[in-house]
């Protein structure tokens, strides 16, 4: 009885999960949403660029920041 129940739950989960990952990620036609100002990872890119310059000057290292890019994905 326990085994039957366990098998049933396993079947239930696997059939629902089978379609789960198909909705991950941004679709190519949704790039306009991604490029909106409110969707940017950085709320103040100018500030971030100036900060980066300071870090580079002080620590002699650069990078490690993400930056908005990738274009529109056309062509």
């Amino acid at each position, binding site marked *: 009885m326990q085994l*039957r129940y366990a098998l*049933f739950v396993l*079947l*239930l989960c696997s*059939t*629902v999960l*089978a*379609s789960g990952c*198909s909705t991950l990620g941004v*679709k*190519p*036609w*949704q*790039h*306009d*949403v991604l*490029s909106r100002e409110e969707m940017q990872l950085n709320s103040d890119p100018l500030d971030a660029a100036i900060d980066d310059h300071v870090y580079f000057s002080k620590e002699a290292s650069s990078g490690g920041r993400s930056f908005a890019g990738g274009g*529109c*994905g*056309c*062509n």
Partner: protein
Amino acid sequence: MKRAIRWALICVWLSCRLAHGADPIDLKAFRGRVVYLDFWASWCVPCRQSFPWMQILKTHYEKQGLEILAINLDQNRGDADRFLGRFHPTFEVRFDPQGKSAEQFKVQGMPTSVVIDRHGVVRFTHIGFRPVDQTAYENELRRVLAEE
């Protein structure tokens, strides 16, 4: 046991429904005609080059059985209308902000054009649009139009 099987079948059906909805573009209405299906958006720069070219295609090949169907994928209808106000296409334009038709045709980039022959079979799929490819695309279209 019977109950478990019944539930399992319901789960399988539910999973299928989650993964694949109804086909939003019914191509049966276009049987007998060659369809040039174009997925575009107002923010897609190459689409500004493809629209005048598609207008020329319509003028030249409509009588031979070409049907151009441009599917807009903009989230904001105003953006699409502004784009259309600039180019004034005379071919059919449909709006699919939820992208169901794009899912149906597995669009991988913008723009994407699909050439479907008179029997409803997809013959060519092009991702992107470059002016240098216009002649090649037109030749492909002529070949498909020449078929029965």
